[in-house]
């Protein structure tokens, strides 16, 4: 376990903060960590910042996330990981497409692992189109950060306060019908992911989906996070859409 002192805290959007800390370790975009708040809990969080300084971006939804929101610079947290497979430009085995043109679909804090992925792949020369969604304008995460990568960024809000009035999946459907993508990556609420898997199948584009499940060990031995025999913490959190379609539990 790595013990990190909180270095900086950034208010990202309503109810969501980024916690930055130093941790000298290689991590891949889409990987997550287990964050220990002593006396409170330990919860899984995607890495939203991957350079020398690492970061997590956390929405307050309950006790552990509230404790994260109360952290001050200098406070110590325990970090285990990085865990999981992360997004892959190469795709899963048997998938030999190139990854020049990518569609990234994110909802809520699901945008947290997408942002560093888009940053990295854009820098490597991919042409990325992002579509991100949230309840309302003040809850949209990382829209500026994504734009700064040079990607085109489409926005959807449930209340129409910014961009498309409706679900981000509707934006995705439009984009898929207009353009040809080599690959889709997605992270967000499970209903969004389910629709994206269907869209990807319809438009015959490979899709990688990052899932969330209740986690205990984080490294693949306890089985708490199983979905159809696969461990979200170890075999995932990023799964190929075709695998997910084949699972009864999804």
């Amino acid at each position, binding site marked *: 376990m790595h013990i990190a002192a909180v270095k900086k805290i950034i208010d990202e959007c309503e109810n969501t903060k980024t916690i930055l800390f130093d941790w000298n370790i290689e991590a891949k975009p889409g990987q997550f960590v287990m964050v220990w708040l002593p006396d409170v809990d330990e919860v899984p969080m995607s890495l939203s910042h991957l350079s020398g300084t690492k970061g997590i971006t956390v929405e307050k939804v309950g006790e552990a996330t509230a404790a994260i929101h109360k952290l001050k610079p200098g406070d110590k947290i325990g970090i285990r990981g990085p865990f999981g497979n992360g997004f892959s430009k190469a795709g899963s085995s048997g998938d030999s497409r190139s990854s020049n043109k990518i569609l990234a679909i994110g909802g809520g804090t699901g945008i947290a692992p997408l942002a560093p992925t888009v940053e990295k792949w854009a820098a490597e020369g991919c042409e990325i189109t992002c579509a991100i969604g949230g309840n309302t304008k003040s809850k949209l995460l990382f829209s500026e950060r994504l734009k700064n990568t040079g990607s085109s960024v489409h926005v959807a809000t449930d209340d129409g306060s910014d961009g498309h009035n409706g679900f981000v999946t509707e934006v995705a459907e439009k984009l898929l019908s207009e353009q040809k993508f080599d690959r889709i990556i997605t992270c967000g609420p499970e209903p969004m992911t389910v629709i994206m898997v269907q869209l990807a199948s319809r438009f015959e584009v490979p899709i990688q989906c990052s899932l969330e499940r209740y986690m205990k060990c984080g490294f693949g031995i*306890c089985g708490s996070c199983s979905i159809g025999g696969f461990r979200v913490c170890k075999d995932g959190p990023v799964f190929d859409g075709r695998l997910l379609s084949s699972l009864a539990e999804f």
Partner: protein
Amino acid sequence: MPSSRTEIAGIEMQNPTILASGILGQTGESILRVFKEGGAGCAVTKSIGIEPRDGHGNPCALELDNSLINAMGLPNPGIDAFGDEIKIALKSGKPVIGSIFASTPEDFATLAGKMEDFGAHAVELNLSCPHAEKYGLEVGTDPGRVGDILAAVKSKVKIPVFSKISAMVPDIRGLAKTIEASGGDGIVAINTLKAMKIEPEIGKPVLRNVYGGLSGPAIKPVGVMCVFEISREVKIPVIGVGGITTGADAIEYFMAGASAIQIGSGVHYRGIDVFKKVNAEIIKFMEAHGYDDLSQLIGMARGV
């Protein structure tokens, strides 16, 4: 090619590697995967109790140097919800052992009866989990109590009954004799060692439950010792578990007297196909040393 087939209390296994209880054994689908992708010869389910149980809060598992520590706290869906999982696991066509925990002989008997009804090939009594109050180690060190539990379970079921015991007892041979005398069909040794981790930078225990169980390579020499001691003392088969990640580790346990071995933490160290890998290494060892049959190795270091 030499054969690593083995047999314990009438249960035939194509290979002697068994999934240990508590590792990926909470759902039927996971167990299926351990068989298909992993190559296990047999699997033990997560320990199941009468009622559903959440287990301990997080953090509940972490990696230490050369070992893992966990305090899952026996999370499980309760016996009644577990029949479906067993049924899925049985689709593999391989033997499935139902692990159960309880505080009383009656509850152990009830659980064993249901496991038998679900189609489990055997039950494994968890007499050794070191981090769940009122269960496991707390009921499993006193020979009198263990005898009572076995008597109740044996009068209830026809399938073989294995007892999984801890190394943290002063007289493991006495305990083994009690188990044999009470009709036990086999002994599984060892469970995790009671242990804990404190984080100096924080000044607190890391596990939410404070205490946990140590597993992985660090405990192997203790496990091998227990198997050696037990198998010198009793005639019923012994299943070795603790720190096995390679074929050489497994061979140590066979030579100590184990008829089969279980792998838990090894899934972390070498992946889900650790069973395939370990079995291939066992066969390679047998080939290199001219053994045809696993039974030639069993108990060898005892001069058997």
